[in-house]
């Protein structure tokens, strides 16, 4: 007997451009997908099954097939426990979905277009009924290993409403560890083995991987996390939230409250990029590497990162300094219609944004949504392309040549140097703030790079406030004129 298919059609066009966001670089256009009223699409994960089929898993535990050509929706799987990530092996046709209790492979054995076999790949982590114990992922490296991240438990009885989860809170922080490996990232090997991988995560809602198997995750501002952050995942690394030490083999049975904040600071690896809370992000989602090689505009190789609360898209440029990743973050497009938590590039190079606004509030106000950002293929917007650290200051790279006079004037580059405090309290203000103006600015021959000279200090954040007078050679305005560079290390 053939199971009943649920098919919904929307419009002839899968997505349409309506009102455009306030901050939108020239050449980009935002389209909104009309979602049938029968579907609640709190997006948890997205992946392309084939060139026209976008698979979307949801917080509601459903997996939908969306035809990006004709706008048809078809249910692929359901009944999952809060599915927050998808990975598709397009060669084998295997669909992997991350749900709270396990990583699951979905198989359509009778080829009716709907999954009927739900196979547990791995469930090696602990889980209680604490609402904050999210499971995020997966990404997969070139060797076939999967990676995911595990949220800490909401353990402070004052917020959790019960003391049953009050375990492994360190220095009176709010989040703790009520089950095994909360606050860890994990690897699942091709043989299906669970390997605790790195630790110290708080609320690691987004995980991404680049073409060289470098894995990054984003974390939310909170206890032991100064502001929103992007971290480079390396095996055995400690990223900062100490509750996860509870499951570290060398610390089992030890009183984590007897270890000082200063000692934890020495143990931790600083985030690759600090993302200023309130100014740029409040709850970042999935970092997506632009692998379109220019189809999505001039930012190939950078990370496109959405934020759930602020409903914006940001760009992150990473570089290695003294062997470690660090770099720049700048706003890209804002605001979209609701919280941007997931993203995926389509085969045509357009960027699909998976959205949810339920539960925390999002700029834009919608409960959920799906939008698509396209580049027109020809217009180069005037923008900060990226900022690089040099031995004597910074190089500010623009997408277009700057005006010779205003571009070379140091007064148009106002900098703020500051740091954050690593502490068990919720978030951190900016401290040790110092205003700086470059001692000199020299433009490259093509006037696309401004070489800034200024004194540098390691473990600082440099905020670049470009003056409105700074324009392109043709007088074009820079859409997003504030950028932040995290200088954990200096060139040796």
């Amino acid at each position, binding site marked *: 007997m053939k199971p009943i298919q649920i098919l919904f059609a929307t419009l002839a066009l899968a997505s349409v451009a309506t009102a455009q966001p306030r901050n939108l670089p020239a050449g980009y256009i935002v389209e909104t997908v009309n979602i049938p009223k029968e579907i609640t699409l709190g997006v948890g994960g997205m992946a392309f099954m084939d060139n026209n089929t976008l698979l979307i898993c949801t*917080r509601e535990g459903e997996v939908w097939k969306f035809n990006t050509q004709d706008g048809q929706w078809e249910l692929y799987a359901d009944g*999952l426990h809060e599915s927050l990530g998808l990975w598709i092996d397009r060669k084998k046709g295997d669909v992997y979905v991350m749900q709270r*209790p*396990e990583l699951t492979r979905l198989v359509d*054995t*009778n080829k009716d277009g709907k999954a009927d076999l739900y196979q547990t790949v791995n469930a090696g982590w602990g889980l209680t009924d*604490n609402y904050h114990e999210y499971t995020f992922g997966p990404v997969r490296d070139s060797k076939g290993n999967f990676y995911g991240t595990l949220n800490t438990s909401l353990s402070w009885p004052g917020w959790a409403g019960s003391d049953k989860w009050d375990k492994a809170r360190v220095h009176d922080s709010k989040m703790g560890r009520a089950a095994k490996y909360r606050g860890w990232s994990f690897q699942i090997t091709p043989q299906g083995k669970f390997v605790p991988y790195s630790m110290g995560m708080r609320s690691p809602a987004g995980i991404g991987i680049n073409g060289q198997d470098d894995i990054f995750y984003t974390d939310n501002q909170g206890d032991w996390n100064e502001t929103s952050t992007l971290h480079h995942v390396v095996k055995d690394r400690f990223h900062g939230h100490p509750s996860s030490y509870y499951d570290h083999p060398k610390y089992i049975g030890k009183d984590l409250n007897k270890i000082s904040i200063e000692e934890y600071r020495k143990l931790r690896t600083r985030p690759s990029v600090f993302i200023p809370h309130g100014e740029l992000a409040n709850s970042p989602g999935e970092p997506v590497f632009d692998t379109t090689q220019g189809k999505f505009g001039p930012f190939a190789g950078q990370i496109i990162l959405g934020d759930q609360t602020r409903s914006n898209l940001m760009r992150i440029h990473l570089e290695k300094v003294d062997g470690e990743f660090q770099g720049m973050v700048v706003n890209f497009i804002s605001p979209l219609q609701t919280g941007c938590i997931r993203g995926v590039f389509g085969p045509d190079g357009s960027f699909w944004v998976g959205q949810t606004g339920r539960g*925390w509030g999002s700029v834009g106000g919608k409960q959920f949504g799906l939008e698509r950002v396209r580049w027109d293929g020809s217009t180069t917007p005037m923008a900060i392309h990226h900022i690089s650290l040099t031995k004597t200051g910074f190089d500010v790279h623009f997408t277009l040549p700057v005006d010779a006079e205003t571009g070379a004037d140091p007064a148009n580059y106002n900098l703020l140097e500051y740091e954050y405090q690593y502490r068990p309290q919720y978030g951190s203000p900016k401290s040790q703030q110092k205003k700086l103006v470059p001692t000199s600015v020299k433009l490259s021959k093509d006037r696309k790079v401004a070489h800034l000279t200024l004194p540098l200090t390691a473990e600082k954040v440099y905020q670049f406030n470009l003056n409105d007078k700074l324009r392109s050679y043709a007088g074009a305005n820079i859409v997003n004129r504030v950028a932040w560079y995290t200088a954990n290390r200096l060139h040796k």
Partner: protein
Amino acid sequence: MRSAFLFSLLFTAGLAVAKPPAGFGTPDTEITLGTKHGQMRFDQEALAVAPGSKVKITLKNTCEMLHNWVLVKGGTGERDRVSGKALQLGAQSMVKHFVPDDPAIVASSQIAMPGKTVEVYFVAPKEEGDYPYVCTLPGHAFTMVGTLAVSKNPKGALNRLNKARPQVRAQWPLLVTNKPLLQRAFVHNSPARSICVGLPGGVNYLFDAETCAVQYGWTGAFLDVGPDRKGRGGRHCKILGQRFEVGAQGALQVGNGKPVFEGYSRLGSPELFYRVGDVRVSQLITLHAGLAGGILKRGLQYTFKVADAKGTVTFKLNPEQVLAEASAGKWNADKTALTLSAKEAGEFTVTLLPKN
């Protein structure tokens, strides 16, 4: 297959369409009763007529299944007893239209074939009161039910019945119609890795993917997932029916192996897979209806398949909670454990009917 068999039986029986009995005259009340497609429900679950009135009921079957209509006196207990008796008609089932000979039956229809109608003519009882009606086809009696009020004020009685009908109070109810539903969710006082399953016929169960065993069942509506889908979510979903115990004592025991969950198939009723040590187990769980103390009750049937067990396999349960029957193996004296040889364990069933 099965419905084809029923069809042929029915046609060879050469049934005539019911006509009003001689001298019945013109009905005082005519009611058309429909069926809800795929939901195993009558479209009206409350009816009312005046005492002693002449009634014509037209049962209009819009389903692809067979249905009948049987009116009973003596409350829902009598209804369930009569429904149980209908299951025991055996070879007589189709000839008798699944209607047993029983003094509690006030009126009954013939079987309505898919897409067809049948009529019933009867004189309402003189005694005022609520009379339950039911479809007594196998498996239908749990959800295809209703109440006919006999009252001097039929309109008032109908209002009363409609108001008293149990409402599903839920923020976001998942309701089972003609195919099983499965939802993994947090449920109060249940394991974090719970799998909730709702089967057509109004039986539901909760399976724990950590210990690989059914924890309990419930009859009635399935699950309110509102607590997980409203606001931030992550709160406990609510079972919507009446909980019953299944005598749960953990997974099948095969040596000293610890059970590890491996997933499930959703072709038809969910079939759950797990491993105990190196031995693979599959457990298909279906609705089981049977008689407990003469009353038709709903429970669960487990069909286990154990591949290549080296030694014996044991199924444990708490016999104080359930009436259990097994297709193979040997129960111990107090019926707390069923032991099977490796060969017997290849495929066997256990049926459970709750005592509560």
